[in-house]
């Protein structure tokens, strides 16, 4: 465990060379290590107690340092250790031995008492490959890679996080020694020794209820494992671990069951532990926040994986991240957390942090190459237990999306007169779950700002009537232009023509706009021409029809759709300004965000002359309208319009998508042309839900630093109102 106490512990953990093989080595792809063979003796299969002087030899075929278990979301409670695959005769065993307390203590480091127990609990002394059911590989686009191993017994180990990469090598080594089959259902799942007998597969609720993480059940179910000396010894020298420690601590049920794939999924969920990992690039994200996290946790009991405890850790997480009521995007809350942290840090600790940071910078230079390799997955990330409260602001990868907001629930958001009591809660709800299609017409009016949240039923009714009249008047302004007048009114003809030629080229494959003489296409035209009179300075620009189309489709009523569109344009108009300043502002914000969240990718773009980010142009101009199918666009726009985590969620989304393809982009050495083509062709191939989750994580993760990348007034923020500004010259 970490070399430093308190706040810097986590980073120290990563950088403390004395504990691990030298960084150059530990960051290099792990190669199977040919170990000096030593004597050992095999016991019954699956249980191996190797004594001294045994004739059988064993061989370490894989070794990886800095593989850790994250019992809680707190980085400080990460338990790091060494993962090994050991071959003995025809059998292969996996061991994971945590680094020791004493080892850490000897280096003058304090460590939480509780983790000692944890270490025993989580230690994998030796598990035979024959006992493994499946291995799932998780390589999130921005987070640590980890694997979850499910045993044939129905138990699962907690995720093993590979802090310095090596999942692929781990799997390929396994493949060399065992039958590893990729699951048909999920290419990230490897079935070990899969017996293809569907009859044997059963899925009973009984089995599910019996499922418990190995680490939790072990001590109770079996006599505690013999605590070997090695547990107290720094496990650095290979020889120091005698094979006597390798007896299995896996709780075994009497009957082995064929776990179905569904079971595997459930099992893995149980094994999900909260984590709050950080990494080499974490210095970008505000040390104090992370450090604060560990510091604050020092006086808390460690949290153990359990469904009930998970919510506890959630609560704690929220104290750091829960957006305040007064604030629409949660930035303040994070800042508050930081403040608190600062207050708690003593001068000494602060000094330590500074020193640590300096050291880290030096390390960084050295590690640049390997960091580049790892950056994709190393932007630390957090993950909470599956199935905890839906309203947690924290991200859960793999968390099911809550059901969309329906009428019944919507009513609970309103007071007796129809005011939205807690707009923030509503936005949050929409952000996470979206809105049921039949509620959209009403809710979109709020989200877009046409209806005020604090308006009453009566006020809204009046507004609708008033606005209908107003719309009529606006429309009359151009509908009454006679042919004769139009002949002398080139500007009008031109404007109308521009709209007309575009509405017939907008979403005509959607049933709502399909076919010749479609009435809705006419309405689309009428609204757009009317808008170009309502906002004559801006007029009509391409892209507007893409923005209006879904709105009309949802809202249906013409005048209401117009006002919804007009409200949206209050925010989006700068996208269409002739000087393109609004677009430039957003593109440059994306550039800054990439620099923050994926510096190697930023460097790559820089080297390849791609920093104008023009390849994101269409994404931003029309809010990904062309990148997803129609229904997904509706779903996405609700999320964006909730402005829950950020008004600029779409910019984070650009980063999330780019990050997801960073490997390919860089491996294939894409340049401006090829990149543009590649990005264009992603259209229709972006999975929305996972992208939203990634974006949410990025957004939370970037926190204040992310916000700082986006200058005030960047669309779609409402324009900054300058009180004494001179009226714009026309």
């Amino acid at each position: 465990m970490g070399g430093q106490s308190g706040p810097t512990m986590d980073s120290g953990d990563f950088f403390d060379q004395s504990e691990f093989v030298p960084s150059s080595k530990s960051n290099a792809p792990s190669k199977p290590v040919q170990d000096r063979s030593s004597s050992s003796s095999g016991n019954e299969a699956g249980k191996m107690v190797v004594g001294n002087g045994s004739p059988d030899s064993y061989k370490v075929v894989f070794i990886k340092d800095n593989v850790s278990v994250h019992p809680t979301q707190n980085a400080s409670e990460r338990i790091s250790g060494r993962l090994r695959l050991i071959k003995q005769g025809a059998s292969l065993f996996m061991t994971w031995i945590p680094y020791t307390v004493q080892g850490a203590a000897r280096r003058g480091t304090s460590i939480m008492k509780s983790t000692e127990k944890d270490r025993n609990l989580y230690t994998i002394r030796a598990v035979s490959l024959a006992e493994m059911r499946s291995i799932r590989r998780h390589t999130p686009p921005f987070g640590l890679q980890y694997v979850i191993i499910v045993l044939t017994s129905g138990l699962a180990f907690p995720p093993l996080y590979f802090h310095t990469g090596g999942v692929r090598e781990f799997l390929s080594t396994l493949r060399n020694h065992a039958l590893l089959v990729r699951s048909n259902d999920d290419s990230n799942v490897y079935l070990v020794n899969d017996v293809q007998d569907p009859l044997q597969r059963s899925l009973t609720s009984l089995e599910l209820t019996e499922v418990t993480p190995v680490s939790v059940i072990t001590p109770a179910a079996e006599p505690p494992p013999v605590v070997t000396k090695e547990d107290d010894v720094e496990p650095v020298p290979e020889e120091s671990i005698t094979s006597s420690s390798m007896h299995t601590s896996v709780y075994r049920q009497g009957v082995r069951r064929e776990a179905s794939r569904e079971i595997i999924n459930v099992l893995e969920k149980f094994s999900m532990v909260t984590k709050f990992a950080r990494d080499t690039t974490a210095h970008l994200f505000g040390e104090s926040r992370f450090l604060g996290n560990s510091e604050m946790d020092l006086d808390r009991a460690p949290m153990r994986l359990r469904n009930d405890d998970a919510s506890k850790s959630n609560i704690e997480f929220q104290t750091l991240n829960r957006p305040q009521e007064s604030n629409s995007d949660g930035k303040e809350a994070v800042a508050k957390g930081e403040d608190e942290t600062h207050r708690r840090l003593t001068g000494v600790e602060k000094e330590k942090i500074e020193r640590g940071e300096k050291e880290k910078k030096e390390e960084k230079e050295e590690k640049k190459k390997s960091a580049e390799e790892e950056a994709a997955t190393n932007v630390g990330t957090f993950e909470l237990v599956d199935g905890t409260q839906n309203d947690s602001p924290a991200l859960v990868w793999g968390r099911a999306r809550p059901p969309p907001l329906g009428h019944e629930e919507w009513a609970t958001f309103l007071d007796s007169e129809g005011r939205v009591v807690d707009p923030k809660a509503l936005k949050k709800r929409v952000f996470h779950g979206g809105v049921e299609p039949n509620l959209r017409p009403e809710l979109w009016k709020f989200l877009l700002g046409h209806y005020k949240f604090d308006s009453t039923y009566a006020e809204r009714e009046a507004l609708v009537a008033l606005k209908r009249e107003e719309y009529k008047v606006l429309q009359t302004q151009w509908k009454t232009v006679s042919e004769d007048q139009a002949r002398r009114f080139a500007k009008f003809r031109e404007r109308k023509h521009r709209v007309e030629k575009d509405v017939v080229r907008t979403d005509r494959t959607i049933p709502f706009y399909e076919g010749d003489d479609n009435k809705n296409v006419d309405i689309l035209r009428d609204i757009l021409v009317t808008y170009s009179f309502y906002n004559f300075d801006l007029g009509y620009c391409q892209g507007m029809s893409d923005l209006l189309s879904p709105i009309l489709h949802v809202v249906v009523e013409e005048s209401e759709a117009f006002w919804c569109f007009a409200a949206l344009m209050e925010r989006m108009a700068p996208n269409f300004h002739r000087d393109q300043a609004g677009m430039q502002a957003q593109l440059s914000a994306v550039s800054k965000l990439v620099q923050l969240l994926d510096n190697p990718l930023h460097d790559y773009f820089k080297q390849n002359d791609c920093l104008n980010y023009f390849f994101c142009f269409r994404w931003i101009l029309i809010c990904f309208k062309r990148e997803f199918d129609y229904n997904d666009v509706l779903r996405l726009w609700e999320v964006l319009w909730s402005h829950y985590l950020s008004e600029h969620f779409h910019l984070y989304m650009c980063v999330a998508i780019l990050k997801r393809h960073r490997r390919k982009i860089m491996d294939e050495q894409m340049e401006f042309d090829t990149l543009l083509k590649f990005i264009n062709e992603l259209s229709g191939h972006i999975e929305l839900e996972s992208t939203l989750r990634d974006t949410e994580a990025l957004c939370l993760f970037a926190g204040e630093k992310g916000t700082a990348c986006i200058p005030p007034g960047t669309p779609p923020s409402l324009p900054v109102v300058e009180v004494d500004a001179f009226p714009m010259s026309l």
Partner: protein
Amino acid sequence: MSYAYLFKYIIIGDTGVGKSCLLLQFTDKRFQPVHDLTIGVEFGARMITIDNKPIKLQIWDTAGQESFRSITRSYYRGAAGALLVYDITRRETFNHLTSWLEDARQHANSNMTIMLIGNKCDLAHRRAVSTEEGEQFAKENGLVFMETSAKTAQNVEDAFINTAAKIYQKIEEGIFDVSNESYGIKVGYSTWTASGGTGGGNTSAQSGGCCS
């Protein structure tokens, strides 16, 4: 798929003149009037044969709207050929040709082959620009000229292939350094690398279409 050369084309011109329809007609041999308007750029590709050599055309169909110009300008970079399109039924699209040409000259490489195209020639009854005017403009500006219809496919094939033939001819004449990709030409399988520059071989590049 292997090719001797890959040429990058761009299609430019006012919005609504039929750029996307021309591309679709050339790559898919169909006319789809409900095609979405273009935002940013779209891509198409097709193999053709010139002088018995397979040539891949990678075509960039750009957005025509004025306010997107700052973006579309960045697409000129490294294009070997351009189709500059106007709509024969809308005079203003013809009037804007000069500004398009200026853009092209300024942002593309000077050896880019530009084909001027008067599209929608199936709408003869609504013609607002005569063929002679188109020819005249092309002559004055050193362009190849053709009238097409993306709807009936008239001359569409030729417009693209004749442009490729011109580019090919320039390669044969050694005008391009084909190893320099900024000319919008990529050399495909290695046998052809040698033929870049002044390399021998016959120079009969015409594909048999009519021309200007």
